[in-house]
């Protein structure tokens, strides 16, 4: 197996992700000649944007600190081994609710966290783009939901999302490109519970194939999605947007860690310093895009502080790194008499968004959805041990019920709070860069939402005669915020086009720009924003509104 120590995307070619051992041609750009866009990160935000900008005719080099995998030959069916997909560089966590990072929420691979994401592909509820004016909490986005609705459709097509014929909530949406997947028993438990409580449910829209697509086969229900899909059914950025990006002339530099962004005396970005094969390099660029996800993005901006920008780049508002939002990820678990075997199939085949769309009967702002679950043994064992404190024979007894356990788990909205933040520690990582300190605490509203969800999901499990029911009350998932978009330079870092207020040729295009998170998984929205940003950049370029350095 490839030992991931030296880059693969070199000498005019990149790995062909669809064929073991094969290559596809890749254009390369010299470092000393400015490219139109240097993009830091190739995940949901950066990878999508790289594709769209290249297709619009711009010269693009996209950097990723992680390796360039060929899933068919590099991925094993093994939880421990596949930790090679996770961002496991040093980070410090603190606050009242210290976050679990690594496996749980950040990837370090070409394709970003989508290489090991769970493929749940949901649209925001339209009102969330104006949650202050329409729902009375947090802040408004500078985006209009109708425009986003069109970009969501573009992304759903690009990923051939499989979904139900009729989606029970929100305004009409086009039919999902591919048919829904068959439900596993864990999903049927969710459905039975929802029906017993009189609320709607649906097969989850998922970015994994329910029919063949080009060289990729349909999902085989092996259930190992969150450790990487070794069959290529999963429609990650690695196998969707990036092959298109290469074909359109983008260059991807793998195992290339960007350490800082350089600027000139006029305060415009001039390129990026990056480490590859143990040496520092400099790539000149007319525009720089940061898309490293909600921890690495603010870290890079802060680590790029200079005499002119002593508090870090794009930080005149003081908000870089602030308003970090996770999503609450609490669960209720129980044991069924029937065999469930939830390790089969994608982990979250059924969902209810009832509490995202219902506004009555809530003692909190925001919403949550909940989905069926399929934890693999290590995740399940450590959940029993660290969340319930089980060990010894008690643990082994509980684990014996593995094939009978069921769970319902939320993706819940948390409110933006400035005290939840990413700052720099004095410790340094293997590249010599200061490492991030991530501080997090739930607020009272977040706690009320969690309590509501746990009560409700317990009823749903009781309604299907689950027994030995218990609450897992402290998990979180996803990372957003830390460089929010807005209409006002004093209260946001970028504008609606993901363009920094302070430095007009610096852009941020990833989960960091979310002003609020809503109660759905974020990647479809991140990719839709990236598509919109690319179109806006094209329009601005045509009007001569891009800066030249």
């Amino acid at each position, binding site marked *: 197996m490839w030992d991931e120590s030296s880059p693969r995307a070199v000498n005019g070619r990149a790995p062909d992700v669809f064929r073991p051992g094969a290559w596809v041609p890749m254009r390369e750009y010299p470092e000393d000649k400015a490219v139109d866009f240097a993009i830091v990160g190739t995940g949901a935000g950066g990878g999508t944007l790289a594709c769209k900008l290249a297709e619009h005719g711009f010269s693009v080099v996209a950097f990723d600190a992680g390796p360039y995998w060929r899933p068919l030959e590099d991925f094993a069916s*093994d939880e421990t081994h596949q930790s090679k997909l996770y961002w496991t560089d040093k980070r410090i966590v603190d606050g009242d609710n210290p976050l679990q*990072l690594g496996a749980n929420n950040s990837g370090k691979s070409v394709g970003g966290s989508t290489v090991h994401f769970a493929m749940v592909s949901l649209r925001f509820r339209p009102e969330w783009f104006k949650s202050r004016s329409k729902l009375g909490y947090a802040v408004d986005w500078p985006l209009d939901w109708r425009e986003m609705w069109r970009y969501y459709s573009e992304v759903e097509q690009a990923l051939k999302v499989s979904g139900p014929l009729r989606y029970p909530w929100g305004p009409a949406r086009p039919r999902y490109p591919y048919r829904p997947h068959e439900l596993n028993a864990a999903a049927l438990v969710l459905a039975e519970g929802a029906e017993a409580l009189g609320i709607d449910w649906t097969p989850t829209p998922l970015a994994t194939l329910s029919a063949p697509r080009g060289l990729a086969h349909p999902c*085989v229900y092996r259930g190992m999605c969150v450790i990487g899909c070794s069959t290529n059914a999963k429609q990650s950025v690695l196998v969707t947007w990036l092959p298109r990006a290469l074909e359109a002339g983008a260059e991807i530099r793998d195992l290339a860690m960007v350490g800082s962004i350089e600027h000139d005396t006029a305060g415009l970005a001039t390129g990026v310093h990056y480490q590859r094969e143990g040496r520092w390099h400099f790539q000149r660029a007319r525009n720089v895009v940061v898309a490293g996800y909600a921890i690495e993005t603010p870290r890079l901006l802060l680590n790029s502080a200079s005499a002119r920008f002593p508090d870090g780049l794009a930080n005149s508002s003081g908000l870089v790194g602030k308003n970090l939002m996770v999503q609450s990820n609490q669960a209720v678990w129980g044991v069924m008499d029937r*065999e469930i*075997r939830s390790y089969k199939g994608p982990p979250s085949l059924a969902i209810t968004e009832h509490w995202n769309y219902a506004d009555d009967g809530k003692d909190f702002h925001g919403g949550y959805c909940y989905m069926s679950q399929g934890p693999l043994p290590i995740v399940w*064992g450590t959940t029993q041990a660290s969340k319930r*404190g089980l*060990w*010894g024979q008690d643990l*082994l007894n509980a684990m014996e019920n593995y094939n009978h356990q069921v769970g319902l788990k939320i993706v819940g909205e948390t409110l933006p709070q400035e005290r939840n933040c990413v700052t720099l520690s004095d410790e340094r990582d293997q590249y010599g860069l200061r490492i991030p300190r991530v501080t997090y605490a739930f607020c009272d509203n977040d706690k009320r939402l969690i309590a509501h969800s746990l009560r409700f999901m317990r009823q749903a499990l009781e309604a299907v005669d689950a027994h030995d029911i218990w609450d897992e009350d402290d998990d979180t998932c996803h990372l957003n915020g830390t460089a929010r978009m807005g209409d006002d330079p004093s209260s946001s870092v970028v504008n609606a086009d993901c363009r920094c207020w302070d430095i007009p040729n610096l852009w941020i295009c990833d989960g960091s720009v979310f002003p609020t998170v809503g109660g759905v998984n974020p990647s479809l929205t991140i990719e839709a924003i990236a598509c919109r940003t690319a179109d806006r950049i094209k329009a601005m370029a045509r009007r001569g509104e891009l800066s030249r350095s």
Partner: protein
Amino acid sequence: MTERYPGYNVLNKRNSVSWNEQTRAVIDARTGIDPDFHRFCDEAEWKALRALCDQIIPQPADRTVKVPLAAMIDQKLYSGKGDGYRDARLPEQDKAWRLGLAAIDTEAVAACEKPFSDLSNDQRRWLLCRIQRGQVSSEAWQDLSPATFFAKRLLHDIVSAYYAHPASWSEIGFGGPAGPRGYVRMNFDRRDPWEAAEASPGREDRARRENERVG
């Protein structure tokens, strides 16, 4: 207790289409770990770690080849590969483990005048319960919080090692590696012929026969 999945051995699928080459290489390396090999722990730490693993995961007495938990943890600590985040209340994992193992021995000596590995099972359990609840206070912990170390480091690492091993998968009836074959039967009470058969009371023999055909 009777076995839930009599005769089921996930390794019987090793040569089937449920495993790809990459998976075979990874699992072979893991099942080939020498249970006595250690490079991170010194002798005292090694004894304490082994005793601790026996307590957290009491493996069935009739299991001929035990999961080499202590050696797996020693290997992880020696490699320095972390989880990608460190709770600000804990030092780096290698330092936390060294401190923690020494402190557990110190507590054992203080309470029973013997190192942890020489305690009886009851004494070990008693001491671990106190550590889990934070009811110990020897100086040896320095600034390590005993309860945090127990939950976030000790349990996390030992339990992760155990459920990374095929023996544990056979025990809980997990299908194990599943690429490229995957699964077909997803509904309640349905199993593919290459999944573990669960014994219902009185029908253990039938499950055993089915499990012998898994491959």
